């Protein structure tokens, strides 16, 4: 069964290679990438089942024992992240194939798209399975390298401009991360996460605090936390719709995943790494409130969603900084919810763009009559993200707030207030989209509709003089979006099971000694 873990990385890598070789045949490429991602979904589902039934599994690559070789290590949290990202990647791939067929492959040069997309998947899976800090860096670079190519696909002026911002920021964050790894190696003599966790207790407090902050800085840029979040709304929206959807769902969550590992395994509050929970609370609050205030003044729906994306990262950071079992449980659920819902919303906006010809709210109208199915597909995830019961957004936020209330303290209550306000403002921003794009009749727009709200909106600088081009919506795109909406609804239906799973996950990732004993079975006596 241990062979399953390397398979998660091998399948997409082999798929990328064969897809690149078979670049002549579009059909073959589609077949390769869909079957590769279907296979990883099955493998990930097996891993979830296995990690829940029999505990975490460890693979020593090349059979080199733990501190020397690279360790692959999948516990409940990793397995769940693998499963969710596989499902999302597959859904978006089907959507992209639908779009590619309709466009006659004009906008996305498919020969590059499929191999790069699979490389992105491989990078994600490396990051989620690794038990080694340097391998985590390699996974990050794999997925970032693929994301540079996907973001600048086609090489138009707007995409190159957005790409430059994104690439330079990512390079800086990678350098932070690599420098942090170097210093951790200097201080502890190892890059194996379990062994670092074992030895971090012997470090002087100031050294440990420095290492802790360096690591968090690198991850915070990737996760787009408040002072380091301004790059995101400028770079994501210009990419093709499926690419934006996958970036929004998954790339920032890798940062969140790494922060969870840092806070629970490497630098727990009890250790010498310093108690950064209160500063992280403030960062969470700032991320939540400032992000959502940005969202309320955007005219472009893609930019608006990018701002809600930044804002909602704050919820997860809030859960992590609580540090309690309840908090981590709710964080795990919220991460799953947010990956699927945010991706689905971006896919729905891709449909809006095709039906309405633009994503600017001030130019869209009457979509409810023209495209009722698209309206439904936008409305459900929009309510979900806004936190309306009974959807998973409500359950996740309620879980976080309950965990916060359980913890107490005035800082926590301030963040809870901010979180509630953010939820309401998210609903406000998304319902404005609904009112403008779907509910407003075409006549209103033609008669020169004007309101105080419309006048305050900021248009997307890149799309200022773009022409409205309405294109047919292929059935495959709509069904892929519908499938993703069904997944978000399933998160609501199986919320009880997921919360129970999240509770076991939280217990597992907080148990550092257990992790160290799994990865380094021969060395426990040292610790």
């Amino acid at each position, binding site marked *: 069964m241990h062979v399953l873990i390397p398979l998660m990385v091998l399948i997409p890598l082999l798929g990328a290679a064969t897809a690149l070789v078979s670049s002549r045949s579009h059909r073959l490429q589609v077949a390769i990438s869909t079957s590769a991602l279907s296979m990883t979904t099955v493998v990930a589902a097996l891993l979830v089942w296995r990690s829940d039934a029999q505990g975490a599994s460890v693979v020593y690559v090349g059979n080199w024992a733990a501190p020397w070789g690279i360790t692959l290590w999948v516990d409940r949290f990793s397995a769940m992240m693998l499963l969710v990202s596989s499902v999302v990647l597959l859904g978006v791939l089907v959507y992209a194939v639908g779009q590619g067929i309709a466009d006659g492959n004009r906008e996305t040069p498919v020969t590059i798209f499929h191999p790069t997309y699979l490389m992105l998947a491989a990078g994600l899976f490396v990051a989620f399975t690794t038990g080694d800090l340097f391998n985590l860096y390699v996974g990050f670079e794999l997925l970032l390298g693929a994301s540079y190519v996907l973001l600048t696909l086609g090489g138009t*002026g707007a995409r190159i401009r957005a790409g430059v911002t994104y690439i330079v920021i990512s390079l800086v964050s990678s350098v932070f991360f690599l420098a942090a790894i170097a210093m951790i190696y200097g201080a502890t003599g190892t890059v194996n996460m379990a062994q670092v966790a074992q030895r971090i207790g012997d470090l002087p407090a100031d050294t440990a605090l420095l290492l802790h902050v360096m690591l968090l800085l690198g991850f915070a840029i990737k996760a787009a936390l408040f002072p380091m979040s301004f790059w995101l709304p400028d770079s994501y929206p210009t990419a093709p719709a499926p690419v934006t959807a996958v970036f929004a769902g998954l790339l920032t969550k890798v940062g969140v995943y790494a922060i969870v590992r840092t806070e629970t395994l490497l630098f727990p509050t009890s250790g010498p790494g310093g108690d950064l929970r209160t500063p992280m609370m403030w960062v969470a609050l700032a991320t939540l409130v400032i992000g959502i205030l940005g969202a309320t003044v955007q005219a472009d729906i893609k930019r608006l969603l990018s701002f809600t994306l930044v804002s909602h990262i704050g919820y997860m950071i809030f859960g992590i900084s609580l540090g309690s079992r309840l908090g981590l449980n709710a964080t795990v659920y919220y991460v799953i919810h947010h990956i699927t819902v945010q991706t689905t919303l971006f896919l729905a906006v891709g449909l809006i763009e095709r039906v309405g010809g633009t994503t600017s709210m001030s130019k869209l109208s009457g979509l409810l009559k023209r495209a009722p199915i698209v309206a439904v597909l936008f409305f459900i995830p929009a309510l979900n993200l806004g936190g309306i019961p009974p959807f998973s957004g409500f359950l996740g936020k309620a879980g976080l707030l309950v965990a916060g209330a359980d913890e107490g303290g005035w800082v926590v209550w301030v963040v809870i207030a901010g979180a509630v306000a953010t939820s309401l403002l998210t609903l406000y921003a998304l319902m404005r989209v609904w009112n403008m794009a779907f509910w407003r009749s075409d006549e209103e727009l033609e008669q020169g509709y004007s309101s105080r709200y419309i006048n305050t909106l900021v248009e997307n600088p890149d799309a200022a003089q773009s022409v409205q081009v309405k294109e047919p919506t292929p059935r495959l795109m709509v069904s892929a979006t519908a499938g993703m909406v069904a997944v978000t609804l399933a998160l609501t239906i199986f919320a009880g099971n997921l919360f129970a799973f999240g509770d076991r996950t939280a217990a597992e990732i907080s148990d550092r000694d257990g992790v160290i004993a799994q990865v380094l079975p021969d060395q426990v006596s040292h610790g």
Partner: protein
Amino acid sequence: MNASLALIVVMAVMYAAGVYVLLERSLTRVLIGFMLIGNATNLLILIMSGRAGAPPIITDGVDPQDFTDPMPQALILTAIVINFGVTAFVLALIYRSWWLARLGDQGDTVVLEHEEDAGLAQEVFSEASEDDDALHEALDASEAYVDESMEAEPAPEPGGER
């Protein structure tokens, strides 16, 4: 842990210069900044292996304590490969953005109309190659000036003839 002071000074200078150049507007300089910072980080990893020692190969009569730590070198090798790939991509990006800057607003529409594209491409290329020719002429002239003023070297360098 012991470390070489010279390496630390070199690393610090590379970081400082790299950050300074990275903040420039020109993309090429940003790339140079990134390369400086990336290599400074590689040096940092090397410094973390402590002082230099014997090659880490098991030989009779060498105490394992005297070995140099091989692990950081493996890490650096990986980091160099990654930096190399990213540098290649950024170079392609710089070329593309130079191309777009040349074409102005027409840049984004090039892909759709192949006929015009070819003509336009030819135009831009010839302009660019004219610029290059002018540059080369200027360089050749300055070389000739140097040759004349020296007068001691009768044979021109092989690279000078074209």
